[in-house]
């Protein structure tokens, strides 16, 4: 907006300087500040208040808006981080758009930190008010953006995490589609024997969950089905699912990724032959069907994990080895079982107890050094034991390799469809490792279970529920409100856009796309208002609302002087 337009709009700024008791007023003359700011351009009113945030102060703002016909309000007091919502609400009650408010921090970042420099603090406060008023003049009313939400969820993956997510969503009353690639639900658990640390049959456990899923209201199961295309954004996805050659399209509000993980192909590792030298998974199916009669059994941990090529710990293998060792002991108490390990991973209460139990049952634990890998011979393993400083030779008639869970090969395709990232090992990468463990940076898409990282059944289930909860925060509403201070490509700037798409690339939230008309379009529902796109835009066409170039430049000029 030009000066001329401002005059036309009749911009009238009101300035309120807060004493905050003696916190501000004790050091600098707030009355004088207010009086002097009356001289600033477009300022129609200025006053000082003992506490602008008090009921009296808020009433004074409302009264001044009415009496002086103010259409911009500046409060100079503490910090916007705590008090901006209060003042926005106040001017909103007086009939002004809440975005026509600007905050000036003259306490936390002025009087409190320059207590021995009253004059300099005064000058700084004066500058800050001048800058704040200059920005206020340029402020524009903004509306919250409303996005309609389709109250339906799709869960991709019918393992234990996906089923838990789907069950919770359906019980909360949302139409839920559960998509599974295979012809039956259950995922990895279908191939397991017992489940640690409870000695529960995997088939029985998963059977119960599957029957709950089958009997759930609102829950539609799509087996032998695969997601082939995803369009849209939070609340408004269109998902194409292929089933036996037919393609169906679903309108979906939120998507949960629970595609699980895969098993490492052990070929070439430690003499694997699938017969005498097998993986823990193969041992499970043997245990499921037959007794293990072998006497001397050696298990090797971290086979293909915690190595340079695959640096992570798969976190379930130690417990799996302990479980299978105890199961063998159960069938055959005479069996000698040795576990060659690096660090035994049994965190928490029950897992540590389980480890103790295995030791009590006579399972032998021998640590090996990755620098001196165990050597596998036809009937014996040679392993250097540093503790006794000798090479041990341990005979075996069954060698079991604890291989890690690895990311699915087709994660990349799904990630591209969803526009979400993968991490270095090709597992899905969540929005924030600590505080948003089941979100993606892209709104409306969530993650749970070992698709994100190898986890045990307990964590898979709680993460399935967690993803359901996150999806529910969206699905529970007919519409969601999105912050109005978003990026935009205004009509008057459209001709500036060169279509270079750099903005598309820098946006961390996938909020900028090139639409069907080959124009840059901001999906405001996804924009978080960081403004990186505006700072990057190669032809300065994009505008970040509430922090526009024009607004920031006006602050710079107000301070630097024309």
């Amino acid at each position: 907006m030009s000066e001329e337009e401002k005059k036309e709009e009749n911009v009238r700024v009101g300035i309120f300087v807060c004493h905050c008791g003696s916190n501000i007023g004790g050091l600098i003359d707030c009355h004088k500040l207010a009086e002097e700011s009356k001289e600033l351009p477009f300022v129609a009113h200025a006053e000082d208040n003992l506490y602008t945030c008090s009921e009296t102060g808020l009433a004074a703002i409302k009264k001044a808006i009415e009496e002086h016909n103010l259409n911009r309000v500046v409060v100079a007091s503490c910090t916007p981080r705590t008090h901006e919502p209060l003042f926005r609400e106040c001017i909103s009650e007086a009939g002004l758009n809440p975005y026509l408010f600007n905050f000036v921090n003259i306490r936390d970042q002025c009087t409190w930190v320059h207590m021995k420099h009253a004059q300099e603090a005064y000058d700084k406060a004066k500058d800050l008010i001048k800058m704040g008023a200059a920005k206020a003049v340029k402020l524009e009313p903004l509306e919250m953006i409303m996005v309609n939400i389709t109250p339906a969820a799709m869960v991709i993956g019918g393992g234990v995490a996906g089923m838990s997510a789907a069950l919770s969503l359906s019980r909360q009353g949302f139409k839920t589609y559960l998509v599974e690639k295979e012809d039956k639900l259950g995922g990895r658990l279908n191939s397991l024997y017992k489940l640690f640390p409870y000695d529960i049959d995997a088939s029985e456990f998963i059977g119960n969950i599957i029957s709950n899923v089958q009997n759930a209201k609102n829950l539609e199961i799509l087996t032998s089905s695969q997601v082939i295309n995803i369009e849209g954004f939070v609340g408004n996805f269109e998902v194409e699912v292929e089933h036996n050659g037919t393609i169906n399209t679903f309108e979906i509000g939120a998507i949960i990724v629970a595609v699980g993980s895969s098993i490492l192909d052990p070929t070439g590792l430690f003499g694997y032959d699938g017969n005498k030298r097998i993986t823990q998974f193969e041992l499970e199916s043997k245990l499921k069907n037959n007794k293990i009669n072998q006497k001397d059994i050696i298990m090797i941990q971290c086979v293909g994990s915690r190595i340079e090529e695959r640096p992570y710990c798969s976190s379930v293998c130690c417990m799996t080895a302990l479980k299978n060792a105890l199961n063998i002991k159960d069938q055959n108490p005479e069996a000698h079982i040795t576990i060659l390990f690096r660090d035994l991973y049994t965190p928490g209460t029950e897992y540590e107890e389980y480890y103790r139990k295995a030791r009590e049952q006579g399972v032998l634990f021998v640590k090996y050094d990755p620098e001196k890998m165990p050597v596998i011979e036809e009937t014996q393993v040679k392993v250097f034991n540093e503790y006794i400083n000798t090479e041990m030779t341990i005979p075996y008639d069954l060698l079991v390799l604890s291989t890690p869970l690895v990311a699915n090969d087709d994660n990349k395709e799904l990630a591209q469809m969803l526009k979400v990232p993968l991490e270095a090992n090709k597992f899905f990468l969540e929005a924030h490792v600590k505080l948003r463990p089941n979100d993606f940076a892209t709104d409306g898409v969530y993650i749970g279970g070992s698709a994100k990282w190898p986890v045990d059944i307990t964590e898979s289930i709680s993460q399935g529920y967690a993803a359901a909860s996150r999806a529910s925060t969206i699905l529970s509403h007919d519409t969601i409100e999105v912050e109005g201070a978003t990026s935009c490509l205004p009509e008057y700037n459209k001709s500036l856009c060169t279509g270079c798409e750099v903005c598309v690339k820098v946006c961390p939230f996938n909020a900028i796309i090139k639409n069907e008309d080959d124009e840059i379009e901001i999906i405001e529902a996804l924009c978080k208002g960081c403004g990186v796109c505006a700072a990057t835009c190669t032809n300065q066409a994009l505008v970040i609302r509430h922090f526009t170039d024009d607004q920031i430049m006006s602050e710079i000029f107000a301070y630097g002087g024309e």
Partner: protein
Amino acid sequence: MSFEPKLLGFLCNWCSYAGADLAGVSRIQYPPNMRVIRVMCSGRVDPKFLIQALELGIDGVYVMGCHIGDCHYLEGNYEALRKFDMTKKLLSFVGLDNRIRLDWVSASEGVRFGEVVSKFVEDIRALGPSPLSRDNPDQELLKKVKAINMAAGTKRLRALVGRQRKITEEENVYGEKVPEEEFNELLDTALKEEYDRQRILLALARDSKSVKDLAVELSLEPSLVLEHMLTLKGRSQVDFQEIIGNTPLFMRI
């Protein structure tokens, strides 16, 4: 009386601004020289903001954001870093690069906020007033800084910096990754070229000039000026006006 620097700071809302507030709550005392502009993310800070501030005679500009990895918007501070580096390189052409600074200050670093601001004040005080300060700005330098300001607005530089992370950190469609050094060479060349071109445009603001005149005025090799002229002509920013004798005169469009 000793010189009191006039400083400006851009603080991201989530970490640095919160850190500055914490300094307040903890009553950490630091010199009152810096005025703060709050932005949501340090990645919002357009190079032009910094250059404009210096052009106005402000003695120093500070940009502060979340520590790498802590960005509220995931990666905004990486972008801030790239943009800042470019700005610094541009300003190094006129020796003003030591008047801008970038730092990461977290919401718990109230003490550190006070420390880094104090240090900045001290360092700028040691440098002395900006040669562009309001009382008596160096007009020659001012022209150069204006050229830098314009250069920072060119599509070429903005596109390069905007794509920098993609180019250097991710593979392109051919599975190639451009090494950081190689990219920097590319960027350095581009920066110098665009700076010179903007200087040429500024020099042509009032009257038309020949390549030779421009070369003398801007202390550049005539061949280089000619090359730039052709590029600028290609961009429809300059054109021949007339030919006097054998010498063509260029004008700005």
